């Protein structure tokens, strides 16, 4: 009798602990192996979101799935298309509401490096946060997260992918998976990368453009420069990563038209009109340009720096001062580059196109792949 009582107590305990163990068992995951150029420098991955193969696989599927939008027609890839270096070719993006959004779609590349403030105005502190914001934004994807979780739980494939990556379907898992897929979007095989690795020499015009890109002009020593390096780092070609060094007012608007920019995040008047300096990798395929897509071509962009700068209270002194001829017209700000130099800089910018990145199957739409496989 006694032993039957003991067994009667032990069995429920055993069953309960088994259920608890199964429910709380961490999935066996595998870290991603990847390479990146030494010159990109240090990077960090959040401790609570290890870069696992399982999360990247899930993130890629979520990225391309219109299930993430309220009308099931808009996915992340709608505004971030691989052939356009994960931009959309529009002045400003359009989501489920059909209204043009406030900003031009930013290229998604080499996101583990550079400023740790995402979006043009730096409003997001992490890739995980950046990934989840558009899903809930009324004009972008307008998806109720709770409803989305129900739909994902009802999908066998997603349930399995989430189980392998995180154990269960969750909003946090969506953000982590999308962030990790985007971390894997590494572009490092452009002609410029190959030049840095010593695998090729640039043409004479590209080399002239590279030198201009890398130089702040100084008429005292007859050094001509395009002044690009003052905002775009030499290897990553994006904004600087320390504090807010990666943000700048590049003279797009005067004081009357000056937009909030980084002020949105910091509430500091000195940051009004400062926007994130974007990566220039694949810049030849990411038109139109600037945070509001106001410039259609790279020629337009160079024309802006060569005479189109507007003064405002937060305009960078580096832009006001940069000039390839001794200052004569004090109120007119221009780099005063000649036509050949403009052509050279644009030729160099084209060396930043990484065709392998733009066509890498690992970054492509998995649904297309599944359909093709039958």
């Amino acid at each position, binding site marked *: 009798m006694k032993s039957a009582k003991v067994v009667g107590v032990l069995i429920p305990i055993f069953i309960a602990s088994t259920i608890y163990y199964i429910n709380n068992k961490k999935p066996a995951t595998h870290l991603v192996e990847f390479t990146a150029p030494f010159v990109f420098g*240090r990077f960090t991955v959040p401790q609570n979101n290890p870069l696992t193969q399982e999360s990247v696989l899930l993130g890629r599927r979520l990225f391309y799935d219109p299930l993430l939008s309220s009308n099931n027609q808009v996915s992340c890839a709608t505004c971030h298309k691989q052939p356009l270096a994960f931009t959309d070719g529009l002045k400003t993006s359009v989501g489920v509401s059909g209204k043009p959004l406030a900003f031009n779609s930013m290229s998604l590349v080499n996101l583990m490096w550079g400023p740790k403030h995402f979006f043009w105005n730096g409003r997001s502190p992490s890739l995980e946060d950046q990934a989840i914001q558009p899903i809930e934004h009324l004009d972008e994807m307008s998806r109720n997260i709770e409803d989305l979780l129900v739909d994902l739980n009802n999908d066998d494939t997603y349930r399995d992918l989430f189980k392998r990556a995180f154990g269960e379907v969750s909003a946090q898992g969506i953000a982590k998976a999308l962030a990790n897929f985007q971390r894997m979007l590494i572009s490092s095989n452009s002609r410029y990368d190959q030049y840095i690795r010593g695998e090729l020499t640039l043409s004479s015009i590209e080399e002239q453009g590279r030198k201009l890109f890398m130089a702040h002009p100084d008429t005292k020593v007859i050094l001509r420069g395009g002044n690009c390096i003052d905002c775009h780092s030499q290897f990553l070609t994006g904004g600087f990563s320390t504090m*807010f060094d990666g943000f700048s007012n590049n003279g797009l608007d005067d004081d009357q038209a000056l937009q909030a920019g980084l002020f949105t995040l910091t509430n500091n008047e000195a940051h009004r009109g400062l926007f994130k300096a974007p990566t220039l990798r694949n810049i030849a395929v990411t038109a139109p340009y600037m945070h509001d897509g106001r410039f259609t071509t790279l020629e337009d962009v160079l024309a802006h720096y060569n005479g189109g700068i507007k003064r405002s209270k937060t305009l960078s002194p580096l832009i006001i001062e940069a000039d390839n001829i001794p200052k004569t017209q004090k109120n007119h700000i221009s780099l005063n580059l000649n036509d050949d130099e403009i052509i050279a800089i644009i030729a160099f910018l084209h060396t930043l196109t990484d065709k392998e990145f733009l066509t890498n199957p690992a970054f492509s739409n998995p649904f297309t792949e599944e359909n093709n496989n039958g």
Partner: protein
Amino acid sequence: MVKYNKLTMILIILSVAIVAIVAVDGYRPLPKDLILRFHPYVGNQPLVLHHQSYKNPGGSGDFSITDFQLFISNITVKYSTSSISELNSYHLIRFDGGTSFDQILIPKIKIKDIETLSLGIGVDPKANGTIMFTGDLDPNSRMAWNWQVGYKFLLLEGKLTIEDKQIPLVYHIGFDESYAVLNFDITDEKISNDGVINFKIDLLRLFQKTSITGKSLAKTPLKQKINYIDMSEISQVKFAPDDVKKIAYGFHHFINIVNIVNIVN
């Protein structure tokens, strides 16, 4: 007479030895964090970025500063018979972090009996010629010119206003020749109880003339007159060697140890 056996004697000797060791160890100063705290000033006024104006020290008009950063490197502390040199000792000091100062922490060293402290302003020629990511050195940072030129040792940007005219101020000072090593005599009184040595960085001293001509605004403790450069005459310095030299001359004079009570935070 009490007779001790051998075992008792050994135990007594051992006990005395242990007590002695513990006592000596207790008197040995424990390692502490040494903090080098840098307070930026313009003459006698604390530097406030963006919002505060200061008189052009060598001419007319007022100036304001939007960005100020510099590299402090190769920190070494010396005792009477030994020294400690920090590894990977490249620190970017900047003043836009929400406090009125920036600081470097050297963890767990003996902070008593330090006789001298030395540090470099800028980046030594060996490190300046590489693209290694060491300490705060980052070839993708704002302080990097490009791999052929090296680093800006000091970055100072702002504007000078003379009546209704605004002149951009851009001082990007680099080049191997500009690297300066400063040595400071240290006494225990110069280190606060919490292990802090306070340094004053006086931006005006970057505009100190090497000659005796020019307008004089301030006096050293020795009542020696300092002549200053007119910022409107040298409003931007980047690659012109003579101008770089003029500003880098100030590297030898613009940092001093100060007593904590003289610092207003």
